């Protein structure tokens, strides 16, 4: 075993101080050390997008970062986005528009969409498809995901 390094960072607004092996991927740290298994691990080489989390508010592949690199930074996973009684509008829209089937890709897609819809509140279909193009879904054929994003944009619009 190699040496461990002390890291301090925030996940879903909770501050953690842990000792981690430098080689531990952020995705594995979230799942195995913190038990936050909503972050899914698909390909482990940055292609599928299932492990997407927000790192200082930006969508990143958590399988392409080491946990030690999160030192001093803020992470949001799907567990921190909404609660079962108070879902985030994007989560609610995915339910209403049937934007998921097996659900494996869903946390990564939803987290990708959070900063996207905040900076682009009224996206075109092309922009939506572009935004989610780094996330692979093997069930839906994307049609209802796109519908869910449109619905979410409506729900999040300040005019409604």
């Amino acid at each position: 075993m190699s040496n461990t390094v002390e890291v301090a960072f925030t996940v879903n607004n909770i501050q953690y101080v842990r000792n981690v092996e430098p080689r531990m991927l952020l995705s594995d740290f979230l799942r195995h050390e913190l038990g936050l298994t909503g972050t899914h691990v698909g390909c482990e080489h940055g292609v599928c997008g299932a492990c997407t989390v927000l790192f200082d508010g930006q969508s990143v592949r958590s399988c392409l970062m080491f946990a030690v690199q999160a030192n001093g930074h803020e992470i949001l996973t799907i567990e921190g986005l909404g609660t079962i009684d108070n879902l985030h509008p994007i989560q609610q829209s995915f339910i209403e528009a049937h934007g998921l089937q097996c659900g494996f890709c869903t946390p990564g897609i939803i987290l990708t969409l959070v900063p996207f819809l905040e900076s682009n509140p009224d996206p075109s279909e092309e922009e939506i498809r572009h935004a989610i193009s780094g996330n692979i879904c093997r069930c839906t054929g994307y049609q209802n995901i796109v519908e869910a994003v449109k619905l979410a944009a409506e729900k999040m619009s300040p005019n409604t």
Partner: protein
Amino acid sequence: MKPAPFEYFAPATVEEALGYLAEYGYEAKVLAGGQSLIPMMNFRLAQPAVIVDINNIPELGYIRGNNGDLQIGALARHNQVESNPLVARQTPLIFEAMPHIATLQVRNRGTFGGSIAHADPSAELTAISVALEGSFTLRSQRGDRVIPANEFFLGLFTSVLEPDELLIEARFPPLPARSGCALEEVSRRPHDFALVGVAAVITLDQGNRCQDARLVFFSVGDGPVEARQAVGMLNGNELNSELLRLAAETAAKRDVDPGSDIHASAEYRRHLAGVLAYRALEKAYLRSRQ
């Protein structure tokens, strides 16, 4: 899979980083965005004993103009380059390339300098840097050296970067007046590695003749491939569609020698090279006249 164990350093200054690189040499790898290095480590294609993480040196994250040059620091991420108005104005070719580079999430993390240092022959930025006559500043405890982009890349994932050196900055001179540029590529899926890609830059003289043309391919060899015979047909001549088409054909026939792999045959890649070269040249020519 999971990466093999390594020793981790996160220096806060460039000097400290150079110290680790000098000490560990070939054992060490610089970690910038990590969007190529970490997948290689996950597959254990790369097993560096030491990682020098430069993400805690924020002063390397700059993008700025200097006497007409555009300077991009080692830690400037693709999303910063993509949204920087100076980049869009001064190096429209780089701006045009950004949406082609991997996915949103990868661009949020990956760096311009890392893409160059990695020297992947399918990376847009390698060919573009050559086409724009860019240069890279490499720093070590031995000092700085500035290497023109067309001398930087040696082959597959190989460059002149020595193990004790850190790529500090990429620099691009302003394009002369009456210049146009364009990027064309074909990939199976958006953001995926290009099967073939090409960057074109054309500068016209006062008499509307081609003063200088550059045509640089990616994904057709071990590094960026300059189409020297093709541009030789253009320089000094008045341009028209027929000549551009002939030059593109020459580029595909004589300047590139693409290989076959699971993604595309050599024959198909050669065909694409001709089609894309023509599109890029024509677009660059039209833009140079605007």
